[in-house]
Each structure stands twice: as C-alpha cells, then as structure tokens.
C-alpha cells in the first residue's frame, strides 16, 4: 500500500488526502463538462417548445431531449455527488480515502459509460428519452453505457462507505460523524438502492436490445426503472441538503439547531424518500390504490416532514449564528447582513427558498393521487422537477463549487463580479422555467410533445392562448438560465485551469472566530431556538403551501363536477 500524502488546508484547518483531492477534482470537472453539454441541449429543447421559435425539427428535438435528460439528470448530478461523497468522508473526517485505485476505476467506468451513452444518443438511434420505456428500443450501447455508469457510481458509493470505516478504525474523528457527512451518508444509501435498481432493470433491457431476451414487460419496466429514475433525484435532495448545512457552517460557523432533529430528518429520508417514485405510476391501472396511496402519500409525507425540518433548521442555524455575532436588531437584520454578494451564500439561499416553494410544494401536490390526475404527464412535471433538481440541487452544487475552487482546487475564483451575479441570473431563469412550465401544464400542455400547435395532425386541437404565452415566457426564462449556466462554466473553467493559485488562508465570508473545521467537521448543536426571523419565513411557507394545496382541490372539483 502506498503511503498517504496529506496537506493541511490553511483556511479550514482540515487535513486533506491528496488522492481524495485528485478524485474530487476529476469528478467535479467531469460533472461540469456534462452540465455544459446537457445545458446546451436543454436550451435547444426550450427554444423548440417556444412556438414562435420552434428551433429543431422533430427528430432532433427528441434526440436533444434524450441527451438533456441523460446529461443533466444523471451525469452532471451523480459525478458531482461522488465528489461530494469523497469530500464529506475523506476531507471532513480528516481521513485517507479507501481504495483510491477502485475510486479511479469507478471514475473511468462512469466516464466511459457516460460517453458511450452520449455517442449512442448522438448517433440518432436512441431518441427514447431519459425514461427509455419499452417497447421503444434504443441502440445496445445506450443501455450498456448506462449500466457501466451505474456500476461505476456504485463502486464510488462503496469507496465512501470504506472511507467511513477507515476513519472510524483510525479514530480520525471523535463520537458521531459530522452532520454534513451524515447527510452524505444518506445520499450514498439512497444511491445504493437507486443504482442497484437501475442495474436490475437495465441489464435485461440491454439483453433485450441484443436479442437475448424476447420481451420486456412495459409496466414491470416502469415500476423498477422509476426506482432508479426518481430515486436518483432523491440522492440529490439528500446531497444538496448536506451542502446547505456545509455552506452554513463554512460561511457563518453555523451549527444545526439540534443534531438529533436534523439526523432524524435524514433518517426519514433513508426510510421513505425513495417511495415517492410511485407518483410516476399513479395512473397505471395495474397497481392498487393501496400501493399508490401508501407509497406516495402516507410514507412520502414522512420524508416531506424531513424536508420541512431541514427547511427550518438550515436558515435557523444561520440566524442563530448571525445573532450570536451581534446581528440582533429586529426580525431580519441577520438576513439583511448576510453576505449576499458571495455566490456561495446567495446560491445556497436561493436554492433553499426555491426548492421549498417551487419544487417542494408542487411535489406534494403531484404526490396526491386525486389531484395528480389534473397534471399527470403534462408539462407541470418538468416544471416541478426543474424546481427541485435545477433550482434546488444544481444551484446548491454551483454554490458549493465557489467554495471547492479555493479550498480543493486551490485557485481563486475568476471573474468575481460575474460570480456575484451568476446565482441570481441562473436562479431567476430557473424559477421562471419552473413556474411557466407548471402554469402551462396546469392548462394541459403535454409533457414532451414537439409541437403544441399540432401541425399536420388529423384532428384540430387548440390550447388556450395563455398556454402559448407561457411557453414563450418559458423560452425567455430558459435563455436567462442558460446565460447563468454559461457564466458558471466560464468562471469554473477559467478558475480551475487558468486561475491564480491560493497559497494562504482566505476569508470565506463571515468569520465566526472559530476554525471552520470546528463548525463543519464536528458534532454539536447551536443550543438556541431564538430564531424569530426563521419562524416568520416558515409561517409564510406554510401559508403558501396550504393555500396552493387546497386551490388544487378546488380545481379538481371544477374539472369533475358531481351533480
């Protein structure tokens, strides 16, 4: 076994295994490359769905939509999550990383698999969408690439678990693992279920594509595939919540209001979050209402409870830390005096707010069997998940990147003025995307159709004029989001490859007088519940939640009048 080489981060005081650092860099760079590719395809999809522009012909549209889903929903997100897992284990626990050669093999499998699947899509014979429902059949290497990617990511998860074991055995931490690492553990556990489900359904589908299996039952496929397709987005939720806690700790020295409560909230994720996959099958006739309602309502509400706890705990922790620093005037001085010009903070806070208001509330609405029927398989669904995965996860990952660049890549963030505005432009664009798609979906606009005017269709059908307006606004919002995404890519590439080296301690934002490692890499609660500002924000959230939920029941009563 080769000797582990460490450096000590001058800013955080954390001991960093250079093998882990190299792996974090590789996975993060790969993630950003796939974000750039997937984002470009996403822009072309939105511009095609803008009736006045209608950019791509039908075959290119479905190709671009498949590539967009693949590159951003799977590759960008999971590459970055593997980087987060290595950061939260090896670095936050001051440990060496387990089996770095296996970790590199995992990276190679993920990269190879991602490239093979992209090639299959670009060759034009695999425009089967991200979901790839049979009997639509893609090229063999489309499935093979996905399987290689899933196996690689699974190995990466076990490297994370191995690192936890090493850190415990070598006593690199005392007591329980830090909350951020616990959040990453939650993400890794959900990832094991997710990736195993993906392998279980994609291997027979691959054999079907090469003629060794005669038939894949479409409903069975949907059931097992969604255990991967939706749960992969639950890895994101756990990972980005862990990142919220990490950024709050690194910028404010914030500790969770209660370790017990926050860890219990993560436990609710571990037990119940994956069950939300069932909402994709709410209109399938072959499954009972008991199965549907239990999985999407009773059990999933426990996971929603977990999210609401984090929604209180993260801003509450920041408020407690700010008040401890003397920002005690009124209800919101702590928030006004927050470092809004620091993209790590602004990105994180926008992610927190938009995930709750856009993705969270709409997710509960869609998880309710009765009201789901109004927007099932409409554009409302991508509206919802752009609120969770893009506004929530992607923005949080972007925010974290602004800390990883100086701390792990040891480079200054390039174009600081551009970086200051980037989360706002991206966030504004994504909020628009999410809202306008949900609005169009409420008017019945189909989720994936190339042309909402139905040109050349045998029967006339017209959506209300408002739907056209919303699709145009959606296209404009996509341009804003794409510009924000482009700014992020330019900043990251310039910083990482051509940036000025960081050698000394840097000030992250709001130093609390204690080492950053003490807040982010240790166990302990804030020990106060004096958070009036957060309670007001939570009250606003609950009011919006209740109103929107019941407005949808009102809509349902109008759709289906009982006389």
């Amino acid at each position: 076994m080769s000797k582990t080489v460490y450096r000590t981060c001058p800013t955080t005081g954390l001991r960093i295994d250079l093998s882990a650092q190299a792996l974090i860099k590789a996975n993060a760079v790969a993630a950003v490359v796939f974000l750039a590719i997937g984002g470009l395809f996403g822009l072309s999809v939105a511009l095609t769905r803008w009736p006045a522009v209608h950019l791509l012909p039908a075959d290119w549209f479905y190709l671009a939509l498949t590539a967009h889903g693949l590159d951003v929903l799977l590759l960008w997100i999971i590459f970055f999550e593997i980087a987060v897992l290595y950061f939260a284990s090896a670095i936050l626990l001051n440990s060496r990383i387990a089996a770095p050669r296996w970790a590199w093999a995992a990276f190679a499998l993920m990269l190879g698999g991602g490239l093979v699947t992209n090639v299959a899509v670009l060759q034009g014979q695999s425009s089967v969408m991200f979901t790839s429902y049979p009997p639509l059949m893609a090229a063999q290497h489309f499935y093979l690439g996905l399987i290689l990617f899933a196996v690689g990511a699974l190995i990466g998860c076990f490297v994370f678990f191995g690192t936890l074991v090493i850190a415990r055995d070598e006593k690199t931490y005392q007591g329980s693992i830090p909350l951020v690492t616990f959040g990453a553990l939650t993400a890794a556990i959900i990832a094991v279920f997710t990736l195993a489900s993906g392998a279980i359904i994609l291997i027979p589908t691959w054999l079907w594509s090469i003629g060794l299996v005669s038939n894949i039952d479409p409903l069975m496929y949907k059931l097992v595939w969604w255990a991967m397709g939706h749960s992969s987005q639950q890895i994101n939720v756990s990972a980005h919540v862990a990142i919220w806690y990490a950024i709050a700790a690194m910028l404010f020295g914030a500790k969770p209001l209660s370790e017990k409560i926050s860890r219990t909230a993560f436990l609710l994720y571990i037990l119940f979050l994956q069950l939300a996959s069932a909402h994709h099958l709410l209109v399938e006739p072959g499954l009972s209402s008991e199965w549907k309602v239990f999985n999407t309502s009773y059990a999933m509400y426990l996971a929603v409870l977990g999210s609401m706890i984090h929604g209180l705990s993260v801003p509450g922790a920041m408020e407690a830390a700010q008040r401890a620093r003397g920002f005690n005037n009124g209800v919101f001085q702590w928030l006004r005096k927050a470092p809004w010009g620091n993209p790590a903070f602004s990105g994180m806070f926008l992610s927190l707010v938009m995930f709750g208001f856009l993705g969270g509330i709409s997710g509960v609405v869609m998880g309710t069997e009765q009201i789901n029927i109004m927007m099932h398989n409409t554009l409302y669904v991508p509206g919802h998940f752009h609120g969770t995965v893009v506004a929530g996860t992607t923005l949080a990952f972007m925010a974290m990147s602004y800390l990883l660049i100086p701390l792990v890549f040891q480079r200054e963030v390039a174009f600081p003025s551009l970086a200051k505005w980037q989360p706002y432009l991206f966030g504004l664009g994504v909020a628009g995307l999410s809202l306008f798609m949900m609005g169009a979906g409420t008017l019945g606009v189909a989720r994936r159709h190339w042309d909402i005017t139905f040109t050349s269709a045998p029967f006339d059908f017209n959506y209300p004029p408002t739907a056209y307006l919303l699709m145009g606004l959606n296209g404009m919002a996509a341009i804003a989001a794409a510009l924000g995404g482009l700014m992020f890519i330019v900043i990251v590439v310039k910083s990482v490859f051509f940036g000025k080296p960081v050698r000394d301690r840097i000030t992250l934002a709001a130093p609390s007088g204690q080492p950053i490692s003490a807040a982010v890499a240790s166990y302990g609660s804030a020990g106060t519940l004096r958070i009036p500002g957060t309670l007001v924000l939570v009250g606003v959230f609950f009011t919006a939640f209740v109103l929107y939920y019941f407005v949808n029941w009102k809509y349902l009563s109008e759709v289906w009048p009982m006389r």
Partner: protein
Amino acid sequence: MSEIEPAPDQEPLRIPFMQRVLDNHFLLLFLGVVVPTVLYIIWGILELVQIPVAP
C-alpha cells in the same frame, strides 16, 4: 460501541439508543435498501404478477 471513554474522574457516558442506531452506518444502509425494496418494488411486483394475461 455504547460508551464513550470517560475522563479519569468521570462516570462512563451512556450514548442514547437512537444515537447508536444513527451511528451504525451499515444498519442504516440495510434499512435504506430493504424498506423501499419491500414497500415499493416487491409489493408492486406482487400486484403486477397478479394481473391476468390477456387471452
């Protein structure tokens, strides 16, 4: 491990049961895989296999 090493003049500190559960990462992994596998996948598959095949 259910106890933290105490300082020489202190009683051993009992770790609460729930904290021991949350510190057992492989138990959490087991639960996180088994619960959705049973409630979502196995229950769902049992319902699908009971659908009669069309004549």
